[in-house]
């Protein structure tokens, strides 16, 4: 239906020729933009409703309770990271809150890694542009990386590289309000608007660049450089992705065209993960609670794990 609409707008209203590059690019742009915005609105709304059942306060309780130690703690933390709402501005208080309540450092990291990496925006962009199998693969891999990196950080006994003041904080208890359905719906609607306001420009620019590439960059153009036969492609992609500050909304449409132009899927996934999981602003925020050494170890472990995953997918996909 969106296709019919896009065809109508571009070929009938604006009277562009479907056989030209310009016509094809603009049609592609209109189609993808409408589709992505519709998906964003619907999926962010649904995800927000689900998340209203898992506030960080509750997740903290779940992780702190009982004997959820060892690997099970990491697995639970990574899974809860998917459904617990959490913006990078709350990274510091959430980190302190978890550590204060006795949740092991490695388990806390499993949560801190999975939460921003496996997010609803990446889910929509991947689902809309690559199809659900790749979206699912991304989520499963993100959770897997969060578990592995958390376990490694836990094993390395890095507690002394957390800033000292973190351990001096005593946290009060707060009553978790149980929202009504009306409240959940209003919050979800507000959240959809807030997110769309924040990312629409990235979506439009990302899809715009993708559309231009779609019309002008021939398929297979990058195979020589970014295809699976170049052994360094994954490493270069991840190293480029770490300092690059963008969000999933802007990067994924471009990455889609890069794969069409010949970038291997594993390399593309690794690049997207490096961009979403390791952003410079997030690192600056985390520096408030982590000493430089722990921050460096964290980045290092993440980079190595993501590179490894990239190679693995290049072999099996």
């Amino acid at each position, binding site marked *: 239906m969106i296709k019919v609409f896009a065809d109508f707008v571009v070929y009938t209203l604006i009277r562009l020729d479907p056989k030209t590059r310009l016509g094809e690019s603009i049609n592609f742009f209109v189609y993808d933009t409408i589709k992505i915005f519709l998906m964003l609105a619907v999926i962010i709304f649904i995800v927000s409703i689900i998340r209203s059942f898992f506030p960080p306060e509750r997740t903290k309780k779940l992780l702190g309770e009982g004997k959820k130690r060892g690997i099970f703690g990491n697995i639970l933390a990574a899974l809860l990271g998917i459904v617990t709402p959490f913006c990078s501005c709350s990274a510091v*208080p959430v980190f302190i809150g978890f550590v204060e309540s006795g949740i092991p450092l490695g388990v806390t990291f499993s949560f801190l890694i999975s939460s921003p990496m496996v997010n609803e925006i990446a889910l929509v962009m991947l689902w809309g542009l690559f199809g659900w199998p790749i979206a699912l693969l991304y989520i499963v891999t993100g959770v897997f990386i969060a578990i592995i990196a958390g376990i490694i950080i836990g094993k390395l006994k890095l507690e002394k590289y957390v800033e000292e003041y973190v351990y001096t904080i005593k946290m009060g208890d707060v009553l978790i309000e149980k929202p009504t359905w009306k409240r959940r719906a209003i919050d979800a609607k507000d959240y959809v608007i807030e997110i769309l306001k924040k990312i629409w420009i990235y979506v439009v620019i990302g899809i715009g660049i993708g559309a231009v590439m779609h019309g002008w960059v021939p398929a297979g153009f990058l195979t020589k450089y970014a295809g699976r036969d170049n052994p360094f492609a994954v490493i270069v992609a991840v190293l480029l992705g770490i300092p690059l500050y963008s969000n999933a909304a802007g990067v994924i449409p471009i990455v889609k065209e890069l794969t069409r132009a010949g970038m291997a899927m594993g390399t593309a996934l690794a690049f997207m993960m490096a961009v979403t999981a390791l952003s410079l602003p997030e690192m600056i925020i985390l520096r408030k609670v982590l000493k430089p050494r722990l921050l460096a170890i964290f980045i290092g472990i993440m980079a190595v794990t993501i590179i490894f995953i990239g190679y693995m997918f290049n072999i099996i996909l």
Partner: protein
Amino acid sequence: MNIKILGSGCSNCKKLQQLAVETAKEMGIEADFEKVEDIQKIMGYGVMRTPALVINEKVKVFGRIPGKDEIKKYIEDEK
């Protein structure tokens, strides 16, 4: 009445502060407003998500910006 806004100076905290000041004024309530930016103090209230509204040392709402009607109710409760 003592009203505290907890938050590390993000834009949402400023918005909540403004809403709370306006609401109190409209209700004709004399209140001392205080901004709490220190992370240790914020966490002392058990709050992990900002902004938060604390009236007479009771955490009323956190992690979102309440509407004026809601703030009015909270002030009413503590009067």
